[in-house]
Structure formats: C-alpha cells, structure tokens
C-alpha cells in the first residue's frame, strides 16, 4: 500500500506535534521515521494508522483519501512500543484475536484459524510458546508475538512504534536483522519509528528525519548520511566534531584550510559558520602539510581506535575526536603526546545555528 501525506498537522493543546508534513511512501517500502523524542514521529505514525486524526491535511492510502477512515478500514497492523499484548490470553489466542472477532461470514473456520496462527508463530519462531501467557515471555518474544498478531489480519501496511526501544542491546541487534529479512520476505509496506540513527540506517530503505514536528530530510540511508540537508541531520546521524569557521582578510578557514569557495557554494556569506566533521573523515599523519595537532588520548578497544586530538587554533586549541581502523592505527604507530598533522577528507559547513 502506498501512503501520501498532504500538509498534515496535529496539535495537542498548545503543543504543535506535527506541522505541515508532506510525505510519499511507495508501496513495499521499509521506512524509518527518525528523530529525537518530542519530534512528532509517534504522532505521525498514529495519524497514518488512524488512531488520531489530523487537524489539517490529508492522509491518502493507495491514492484514496483516507483521512476520515477509522483504523479498521485502513488495513493497518499497529505494533505498540510496549507491545500491548492481551495479558489474559495465551500467545495463541493473542495471535488469533483478529481472526476470531471477524463477522461470522468472514470468519475463517476454527481449523483454518489454528493453521494460520500456527504458520504465523512459526514465522516469528515462537511455535513452542503458543500456550504461554505474555507474562511468561521475554521482551524479544513479546515483540514477535505482537508482530504475529498484527500480521494475522493480513495488513497492507505495518506500523511499528519504537519496535526495539524496550529491548536490551543484544536482542535488539538480532531482532533488527530479523525484521529486515521478514520484510524482504513479506513485502508489506512498513513504517517504524525510532530515535536510534544506527537502527534506521541498518534496517530501513528510506529514512525520514523529523525535527520539531516537521520533515527535515527524506532519502535513502546512504544519501541522508553522506549529504545531510542541515547541521541537525548531520549531527543526528552519527558522531560529529564541530569546528568554528575562522575568518582572516575576507577569507574563511577551517584550521589552515581555505574554504571560502565552499562557503560561497553554501551561500553562507559572512555570517558566523561552523564545520561538521565525522570522526572517521580525519586522517592522521606526519607529513608537513595539514593541520598541526597533538594526540591527547587513545582508546583502542575493538576494531575501531578512537583518538582525542588537540588541533592548533587561536585563541584555544580545538578538541577533535578521530577514528581509524586498528590496522591503520598500528601502521601509523601513534602514541599519546605525538605531534601529528591532520587532513580533513570530508566536511560540511553550515550557518551557525546558535
């Protein structure tokens, strides 16, 4: 099912949760609504589901204006952050719920229900727990029951609110990959809400970054990561170093580097500006060229080595964090206190937001 939002706004009292959102989700997509808490992502999900109705704007499902449709008519499966399993029913009955409540002429036979629920429990790898109650399951299992229950009514759209938010790191990682595989198998248009950029990048094939109830950027994970539309998106998707752009004689500099041209490409003019640099875009070497710096600290745990650097600047040195692979770190033979030179491979300038 394809989804289009046209100028959708929603207010709770004085608080504008979602403002003028336009969005197109192609059929079969797996899309992440990404943003910090309070950015309106859950509200947007509920507006698409029909759990809330927008104050202004339209929700189109497969091109039909569904703004006034009740949730039942929208054919959506909604999975709540805390799963909302019916605690007085077994796992089997939870999954069967959507089938058992159908009107008599649409209701499958008891045998068909048993078969379908069995197949769904197999899909979510929970066949062995059919007779247990939700309180006897782990967080990851509950999540999968909630998903199976939503899938039982053959939704054309799957909506997941912070699907991995309440799980511990290990389970979360496994479940992410599992959800990605499941989507590749079922091809149900799916939208999930997350505040975890890593999760969005790993799982989704489209990312919508939200900020203060507005869409900040839409795109494929790689595009959003490599070409952030704003300093907000740049900061939100991964680590960044922030360096103030300095000016001398009408020209702009990032450290010793003349970046006047890039500044005018961004049409920032003479306003205060910052450059954002991801830690892995800082190359550390011993050449004559580059930005002189001192190694302050080294944290060599796992495959990535992180270094704290103090780059020369006036009035005070700039603190930077850099990342490199363990192999490169070993080859460069860096130690705390070393004087080094830095090459900035990639950076972006933005007008200073403060």
């Amino acid at each position: 099912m394809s989804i289009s939002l046209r100028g959708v706004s929603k207010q709770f009292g004085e608080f504008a949760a979602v403002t003028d959102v336009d969005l197109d989700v192609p059929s079969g997509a797996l899309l992440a609504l990404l943003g910090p808490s309070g950015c309106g992502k859950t509200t947007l999900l509920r507006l698409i589901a029909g759990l809330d109705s927008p104050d202004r704007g339209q929700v189109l499902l497969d091109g039909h204006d569904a703004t006034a449709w009740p949730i039942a008519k929208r054919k959506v499966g909604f999975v709540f952050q805390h799963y909302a399993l019916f605690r007085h029913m077994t796992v089997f009955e939870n999954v069967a719920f959507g089938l058992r409540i159908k009107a008599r002429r649409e209701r499958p036979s008891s045998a068909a229900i048993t078969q379908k629920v069995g197949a769904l429990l197999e899909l979510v790898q929970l066949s062995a727990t059919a007779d247990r109650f939700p309180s006897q399951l782990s967080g990851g299992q509950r999540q999968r029951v909630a998903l199976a229950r939503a899938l039982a009514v053959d939704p054309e759209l799957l909506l997941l609110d912070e699907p991995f938010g309440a799980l511990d790191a290990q389970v979360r990682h496994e479940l992410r990959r599992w959800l990605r595989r499941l989507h590749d198998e079922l091809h149900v248009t799916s939208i999930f809400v997350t505040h975890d950029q890593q999760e969005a990048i790993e799982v989704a094939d489209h990312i919508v970054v939200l900020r203060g109830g507005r869409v900040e950027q839409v795109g494929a994970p790689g595009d959003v990561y490599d070409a952030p539309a704003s300093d907000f998106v740049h900061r939100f998707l991964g680590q960044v170093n922030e360096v103030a752009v300095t000016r001398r004689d009408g020209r702009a500099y990032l450290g010793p580097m003349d970046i006047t041209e890039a500044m005018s490409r961004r049409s920032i003019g003479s306003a205060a500006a910052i450059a954002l640099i991801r830690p892995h875009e800082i190359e550390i070497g011993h050449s004559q060229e580059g930005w002189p710096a001192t190694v302050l600290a080294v944290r060599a745990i796992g495959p990535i080595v992180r270094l704290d650097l103090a780059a020369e600047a006036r009035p005070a040195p700039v603190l930077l964090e850099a990342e490199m692979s363990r192999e490169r770190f070993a080859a460069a033979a860096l130690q705390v206190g070393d004087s080094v030179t830095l090459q900035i491979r990639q950076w972006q300038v933005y007008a200073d937001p403060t």
Partner: protein
Amino acid sequence: MNAALREPPRGGTGNIWLTLAALSFLGLFLAVPLIVVFSEALSKGAGAYLAAITNPLALAAVRLTLLVAAVSVPLNCIFGIAAAWAIAKFEFRGKSALLTLIDLPFAVSPVIAGLVFILLFGNNGWFGGFLMRHDVRIVFAVPGIILATIFVTFPFVARELIPVMQAQGKDDEETALSLGATGWQTFWRVTLPNVRWGLLYGVLLCNARAMGEFGAVSVVSGHIRGLTNTMPLHVEILYNEYNIAAAFAVASLLALLALLTLAAKSYLEWRQPELRRAPTQARSHGRTLRERS
C-alpha cells in the same frame, strides 16, 4: 514487581513497638467489638439466637436488605464501569467535574442524602404532588430505600476501576481496534477481562456498604416493620426495645458479612497484587497524559 523492593527494611526494636502499637489499637477498636457482637448474640443460648434470626420480622429485614443490594449493586456496577471507562480512556470537557460528582456521596453525610430524597419525593417535596396523583410511593417505601442506597454506594465501583484502567492505558484497546474489533468486542474481550479483579473488588465493597447502610436508609425508610426495615434498621429497633440478645443476633449476621467481605478482599488482593497499591499511587503510575514523541 520486585518483592525485595516492596518489603520494608527489617531490624531494629522500633519496628516491634510500632507493630505492637498498631496491633493493640486494631485489637481494641476492631477485634474486641467483634467478639462482643458474637458473645452477646449467643448470651442466651443457641436456641434464642436461632429464634431471633428466624423471627418473621427479622427474615423480612434480611429479604429487604438482599433485595436492595441485588438492585443497587448491579446498577452501580454498570454506572461505575461506564464512568471509569469514560474517565480513564477518553479526554473530554467536564471530566474533572464528573470525578468530583462521583466523589460527592463520600463527602455528603448519609443523613443529608436521605433528607434530599424526602425533599424531592416526599408528600411535600418537589415531585410529591405528582407522585401522589399517580399513586406512586417512593419515600417510606422500598424504592426510596433503593434510591438512597444507590446514592451512598455510587462511588465504590468507579473509584476502584479508574486507577486500574488509567494504569493500563489505551494501547490494548487501540490494538484491538486496529485488528478490526468493534467497540463492544473491544470492551467485552479486552477491557473487561483486564479489569475483572478490580471490578470484583469494587463490587464487593459496594455490596458490603449497600447491605450495611444505615443513615440514608433510616431517613427514607419510615421504619415500617416487615415492610421497610432493612437489617441495620431492624438491629436498631430491637436494641431500642431492650431486646439486646436479638439485636446482637441480627447484628452478627451483618458482622459475618463483613468478615466474609474481608476474606474475599484478601483473596482478591492475593490473586491480583496490583490492587494492593493505594489508588492514589496507582493513579500517579497511570498514563493520564499522552506520551508522545
């Protein structure tokens, strides 16, 4: 819930003294009167006890009390569920006004509640003339007693259910709706089973109060023996006639009801630990504000 967190810290002689003080207070004000009721009831022997409670007037009082409870408890149950459902699951204007109204019977003296019904439905009351013309008796008759009882026991079910429902939030209901359930299906299959223990608890308290209510019923009843005398009123009449043993015999039935209620209440609390939390505490856990991100 973690059992270790729930238990108060142990140790120290202070605890022993506090416990002793609480126990002796309870003993003095609750256990001793209870013992007195039963010993006085049986003071003239088991034969006199049986005679007192099988006396036709006593039986009539028992029947009336049961009838009043049988009508008022289900009505308050329906009202309580409806009010709690509305308050816990929806946002609407006048919500706090409704909450205040529900608490009104707790705030008003039962005698005043009874008087209100006299002023409304008595011969000289607002609707008195109308009722007389149509030959309907409310005050000094069974309908008045039922009305007064409903008024007094109004808050019990609703007050018990509101915190439970608020703590559970709306996610379950919204899930059911998203799976295609109708409003009724959602209520019967999801909401009601989720609050069944809280509901039973509320019904129990409501029933105990309905059977034991004295003040409001006393005002509207008219004390017509065999017709408008409930058990508490019958106890008073017997006592005023210096028929002490008989009075305590009937009173012992009410005391027995209280003990049964307490036993059932403990059983429910054991079944459903959530009920053990004080309503105010449960309310603060409840997600009354919309959680949105």
